[in-house]
């Protein structure tokens, strides 16, 4: 596929683009000032900073159409940007151009409690969504992230949350979308494609086009509205955890697989001792102390029930499970500590685990992938060895680190009743330490290849996903063809997913 957009953009073109955008959106909402552009050049990831040529803030779908039509006419790339929160460089423009900052599109357009849905614009965050949901006795399935990410962007990007074990990932909660395509035309998917039918979870019409917009970072179109599912919020809960006597992963993963098939938990995830400590402690020193007393691996979960009876039944089932499998309950004292910092209301409503994890060294490299229960222990051993070779901790701060190198940060969540598991390998690095940056930068690709070589896959075509594209000899060429058809000028977020 030939690149059709200007790269770099000639100044005379840029000046014309800025002028036309200002006319379309208002002077106040377009800036090509270097001060503006540098502020959009980084995200949470270790990806190198890159600036857009200019930033435009549309007010609504119509404005987005205008921007894309102008971009198309001048052959200038456009990157959509909602809340700017991304762990793999998804918010950093690959090819400069227009950064389409959607933060003025911050309204909850509709709430339908009867049908348990809400319609949101791109800048509506989970914190906001949960605030609305809570008043209705309902909730969104929030990601394991701060409350600030965009509901729309996170769901589209296959966001995973603590409740995904039971309720699935982001796209499962999308009922309908409004998309502005590469020609500035509007496409509606799902329930929005059936005028008058209401908020129903109907894919299609016919072949469901919605899938092409999932995990594609806007390369096929910019989503400006989304109808999302709300879920009941059971009011009775028990927050508890299980561990196994043996400290290796094999034992605990066996328990996890069996537990997920009991189908009694509301949320479920495996935390290692360090992660558990970070969530429960107020600072690094506290986390370091707590970690020493934490079990090595814990499966943490909530039992929930609409009534106390329902909860009691689930608890009895859990007790029988524990007896049967030889699992052990984590000491209640730890759960109380953890609950104080991260109680059910907070955990279900929002989770602050990501910023808390950043306290360790400033940031962490997140590698989220899928594999099977059988493959993970071996993968984890290989990962640990790789870390010893690459990010060997000469940093004196590491001595106090709740994540010493011999205990890699691993987070596990069963998906689809244990058919697969979502795993997060994390590497903690310091953005303010050039040595740390230098050592950590190659780790991502090295770990990615390790994962791909040993039975793991990425369901997102993020930076890691790019490395897996060559291993998909049929899928990836088809993707390229689709891109060429839907966006022949290649102006929508070029350079993503291994595409030109």
């Amino acid at each position, binding site marked *: 596929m030939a690149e059709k957009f200007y790269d770099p953009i000639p100044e005379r073109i840029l000046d014309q683009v800025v002028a036309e955008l200002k006319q379309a959106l208002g002077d106040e909402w377009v*800036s090509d000032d270097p001060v503006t552009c540098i502020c959009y050049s980084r995200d949470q990831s270790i990806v190198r900073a890159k600036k857009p040529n200019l930033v435009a803030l549309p007010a609504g779908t119509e404005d987005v159409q205008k921007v894309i039509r102008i971009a198309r006419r001048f052959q200038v790339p456009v990157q959509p940007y909602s809340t700017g929160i991304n762990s793999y460089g998804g918010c950093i423009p690959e090819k400069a151009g227009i950064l389409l900052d959607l933060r003025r599109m911050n309204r909850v357009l509709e709430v339908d409690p009867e049908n348990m849905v809400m319609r949101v614009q791109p800048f509506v965050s989970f914190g906001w969504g949960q605030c609305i949901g809570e008043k209705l006795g309902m909730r969104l399935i929030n990601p394991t992230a701060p409350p600030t990410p965009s509901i729309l962007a996170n769901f589209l990007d296959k966001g995973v949350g603590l409740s995904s074990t039971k309720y699935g990932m982001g796209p499962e909660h999308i009922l309908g979308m409004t998309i502005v395509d590469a020609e500035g035309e509007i496409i509606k998917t799902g329930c929005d494609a059936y005028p008058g039918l209401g908020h129903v979870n109907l894919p299609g019409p016919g072949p469901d086009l919605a899938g092409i917009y999932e995990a594609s970072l806007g390369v096929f179109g910019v989503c400006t509205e989304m109808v999302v599912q709300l879920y009941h919020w059971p009011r009775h809960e028990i927050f508890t955890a299980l561990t196994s006597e043996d400290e290796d992963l094999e034992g605990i993963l066996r328990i996890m697989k069996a537990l997920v098939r009991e189908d009694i938990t509301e949320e479920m995830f495996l935390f290692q001792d360090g992660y558990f400590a970070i969530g429960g402690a107020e600072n690094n020193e506290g986390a370091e102390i707590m970690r020493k007393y934490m079990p090595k691996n814990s499966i943490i979960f909530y039992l929930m029930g609409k009534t106390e009876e329902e909860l009691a039944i689930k608890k009895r089932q859990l007790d029988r499970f524990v007896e049967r499998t030889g699992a052990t309950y984590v000491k209640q004292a730890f759960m109380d500590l953890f609950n104080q910092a991260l109680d059910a209301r907070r955990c279900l409503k929002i989770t602050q685990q990501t910023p808390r994890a950043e306290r360790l060294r400033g940031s962490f490299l997140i590698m989220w992938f899928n594999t099977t229960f059988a493959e993970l222990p071996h993968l984890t051993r290989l990962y640990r060895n790789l870390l010893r070779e690459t990010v060997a901790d000469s940093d004196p701060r590491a001595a106090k680190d709740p994540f010493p190198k011999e205990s890699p940060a691993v987070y596990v969540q069963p998906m689809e009743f244990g058919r697969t598991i979502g795993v997060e390998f994390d590497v903690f690095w310091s*953005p303010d330490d050039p040595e740390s940056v230098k050592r950590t930068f190659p780790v991502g690709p090295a770990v990615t290849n390790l994962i791909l070589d040993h039975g793991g896959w990425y369901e997102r075509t993020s930076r890691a996903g790019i490395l897996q594209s060559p291993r998909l000899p049929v899928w990836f060429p088809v993707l390229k063809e689709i891109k060429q058809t839907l966006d022949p000028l290649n102006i929508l977020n070029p350079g993503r997913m291994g595409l030109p």
Partner: protein
Amino acid sequence: MSEFTRLSYNPLLQVHRSALRCGKCGLCRYIDNLDIREIEYSAICPSGERFKFEEYYGSGKSELVRGLLTQLGATTNELEINDRLLHALYTCTLCGGCEKMCEALHKYPLKSIMALREYCVREEKAPLPPHRRMADSIAERDNPLGNPPEARAAWAKGLRLKNFTKDKAEVLFFTGCMAARPGQRRVMQAAAKLLKAAGVDFGILGEAEPCCKLPLVRIGLRKSFEEGAKMVIAMIAELGVSKVVTTCAGCFQTLDREYDDLGERPFETVHISELLLELLDDGALKLKKKVKGKVAYHDPCTLGRYTENYQNPREVLAQIPGLQTVEFLRAKGNAWCCGAGCSGEVAALYPDYARETAAIRLKEAAHVGAKQIATACPFCEEHLRAAGGNVKDLVELVAEAL
């Protein structure tokens, strides 16, 4: 070369490590998400909320630090101080909301903003003209607002208060520069009335009272601030008082915290809300008259987030007979800034924006059913009132109940 360029350090180097650590999580945009009750009242950053672009938020300021620092070394992202940067920097009210909400700790966006201001001064791109006038006014009249020294004591005329230029007392009532404004006279008079009624042995400095110099550090004139602050400390120390009480939240925060590391302070500084609570609890002050009203207490940034004095003013208000209190949806650490800037420096530069920010707070007051706003800062009080609010200082309400 100006004195500022003789500064021997680059202020950005003091914050560059924390600035680089910003993970762009966006928490600095909102109040504590667990406390959000209404989406409309969830924002915490006045400049971000108004101007929207990323450079107006705490997270954006971290990038500005990085961009300016790369001029010293690697040049992948060169940045210069221009009008846009100055606008993004000085529309910030320094409310501290971003720093309070930063769950990741160690990121210190507020410190980055202060460092950026110092840097702009160092590079002679600041102070901006209204701020330069404030600084000159402090140098000439010890008052950033242009009021002459005699105006500072006008409120005390006829009250026969002890004056430290000729009397001795145990407690210094430090009125602050806003005392020179006619609109604040009744607040000062109310405070004096209360202290007298409680039998507190206090005095004032009157015309001799210096500015605490807070505006200087907020503008970015750290060196001038430190020099002036040391003189203020010495002056108060010479009085031999063990306690300084002030009605000004900004002066309190300055004397109590900002003066740290500037020399020994043989005196304790308390905000009047703390002293009033003590006096009420000890029975030295008795409130007998009913005060009708339904007030929402507005937490001043310098008394609230900066020094975590949330409870004292509330407990004082709770002891006023007949007075109903309601809470803002954004209260205590979540409080929405009045928009003035803690020494009025934002209102001086961008009055329309400052007024819009205040209007948001007034709308919130109406939303929670408050008929009046109570506060404990003269800048908040005057600014919210100028925006159309029915506002009273805490001490006025207490004095009404005497």
